[in-house]
């Protein structure tokens, strides 16, 4: 399940902060011109500042529902969960991450990014065996860090536009495409049903544990800004974040098409996500 993909944006929001953290080291390698198959993005390419949100009224009520649910249930549970010793929580997190690897393998194939698919498969095999059923991320220690993907990204690669903004109950901000992606991911996991976890007796408990794990790893609290414009702000950021990611995908895809294998190599060398 890739529930995280939705909430992840929420984690991003605060990050937009200038907040003193110049120490972060990320390499922004400049890509040699011959590898750049697409021209750079120019200001004129930026999407409008307005967001397509025909279901705004419903979305706003859903947003409030999510905020209330989060305050009343989700946040309390995940805060209580924080008292569990961190190695245990890390194990739980790795376990669910490993399960979602299966979905990544399939979606990378659908995206025709076979090396990445192979990498996800390798990670799944290593972590399931050496990592004792996925409790430890052994693959990351072997310089094979995770790079999850999902059906929403696959749809984007296939050229599907994000569509209207959509706030999904319990899950949070999304777009129509990403919403379909989420259910696609869930359907895939359910269909494959690794170790009978998704359809067996424990599936409800597991789903709940997964949700708590995801929530406790997302540093977001509804309305901590106190701002009446939070809905607008989150919508703005979520949609642009996804557009930038789509843009990056297209560029990488085009670069790959332009027969620049070194680039794909680099992609594999680098840790992705955190």
């Amino acid at each position, binding site marked *: 399940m890739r529930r995280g993909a939705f909430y992840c944006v929420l984690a*991003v929001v605060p990050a937009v902060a200038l907040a003193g953290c110049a120490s972060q080291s990320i390499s922004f390698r400049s890509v040699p011109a011959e590898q750049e198959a697409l021209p750079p*993005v120019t200001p004129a390419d930026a999407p409008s500042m307005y967001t397509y949100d025909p279901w705004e009224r419903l979305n706003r009520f859903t947003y409030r529902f999510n905020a209330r649910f989060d305050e009343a249930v989700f946040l309390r549970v995940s805060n209580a969960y924080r008292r569990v010793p961190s190695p245990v929580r890390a194990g739980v997190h790795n376990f669910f991450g490993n399960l979602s690897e299966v979905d990544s393998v399939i979606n990378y194939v659908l995206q025709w990014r076979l090396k990445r698919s192979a990498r996800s498969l390798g990670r799944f095999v290593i972590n399931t065996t050496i990592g004792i059923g996925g409790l430890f991320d052994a693959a990351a220690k072997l310089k094979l860090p995770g790079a999850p993907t999902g059906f929403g990204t696959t749809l984007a690669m296939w050229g599907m536009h994000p569509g209207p903004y959509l706030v999904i109950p319990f899950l949070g901000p999304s777009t129509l495409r990403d919403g379909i992606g989420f259910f696609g991911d869930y359907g895939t996991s359910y269909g494959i049903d690794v170790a009978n976890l998704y359809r067996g007796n424990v599936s409800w408990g597991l789903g709940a544990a997964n949700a708590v794990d995801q929530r406790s790893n997302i540093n977001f609290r509804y309305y901590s800004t106190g701002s009446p414009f939070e809905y607008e702000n989150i919508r703005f950021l979520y949609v642009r974040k996804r557009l930038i990611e789509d843009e*990056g995908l297209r560029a990488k895809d085009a670069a790959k098409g332009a027969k620049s294998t070194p680039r794909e190599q680099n992609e594999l*060398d680098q840790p992705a996500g955190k």
Partner: protein
Amino acid sequence: MKFSDTSLARESRFRDHVVHFGVAALLSGAGLVHGAEPSTPAVAVPAQGYAAGLADSVGLRATVFGTPPQNLAPMPSRVPLVEINISLPWARPVPDVFWFDRKLRVWFSAQAKPAPLAIVISGTGSDGNNSKLSSLRGALYGAGYHVLTMPSPTFPGFIVSASSTGVAGDLMQDGRDLYAAMQQIIARLPRKVRVTEIDVLGYSLGGANAAVVKSIDAGEGKLKIHRAVMIDPPVSLFSSVGRLDRLFAVSVGSGDDAIERLYRRLYAELANLYRASDRVQVDEDFLLGAAATALQTDAEFSAAIALSFRVNLVNVFFAGDLYAGTGVVVDPKHPPKVGDSLEETQRKLRNMPFADYFTKVFAPYYLKRRPQATAASLIADNRLDVIGDTLRNDPDYYAQANSDDVILDQQELAWLQDTLGPRIAVYDHGGHLGNIGERQQVSDMLKMLGGSWPVPAK
């Protein structure tokens, strides 16, 4: 709800400035223009000038990025932290759009043994638990204080739950609201907490608030506040804010077009950075790295600072207009409901400087209630001089200031030095709040609070 502050420290550092996100946050958080360009065109310095000159990149950079991690004072590895949500008896009916701000939220860290209580007030528009407060909390807790951190009276959560007017920004009125709220909070602290004495601190506007609260308490004596420390306080609220408005005008421009241009540049910049990175997602690390890469010039730093302030102002403006019924963007007869879009309202407010808030909301509201007041007297009432004599004569007021602070000019800094005499420490770096948590700042602050700040013989 309890959790250790250490787990929050890193997170809240991110949350900090951009606790106010949206357009402006996105814009301010990451680069604005051609980060790679080597030239550093300084923003034209307004005639009024800045203490050490606006073109001082070091001060601007410090203001944007804060204290470098290697300069931070050591912090206790664990600081207990409890969130307290409190309904105040004088709270007004909560407007529909502010349904989530029903209670005042403050954060408390208790010592196991009897200890002095340090109350820390946040800066303009900020909540009671951000990265600056985290630094201060860590330092104070490590030095043996119970620590209570409070939002600014200009934070929407405070305006809705604790303000008696809803129109924030009046130094004395905000001070009275804060003082009343403090009494309620202290009465409801966990019973086992033993407080030996109370000190107040604050940064930026919160510094001025802290001093005013102590001066009110000197008259009423309900909390018997001992010492007050102001960290980078403004001297004249409205001229500091005016300076930020001008910064906005010179670094961003005015009107929708200017903001849209900025947004488009930023979007393109981020998209290209993302392409050139190996990231799977646009996540925290990516954005912070992008901000550090792209924010290079004084113009960009200035825009980031100005925008960050403007985002706060939008909230204050909106709340004030709603409560005062002044009808600038909120129709007093038909206030917005939960399902209503606020995009257009936000767009209008984004383009309005503080001067508009003053003339269209603040002044009309207070002039109606204070028959003797004039616009000029309202401005004068919002200078630290209103408690000037107290600051001058009472040895329990202290301040820390930076000579390259963007919110002060030279005269104002001189006024602070003259008024407080040996009770002020002036640093030659840090910009506005860019040295909070730094070793020197923390050690001086603790000496001031503890009464051991060296007062040289005259």
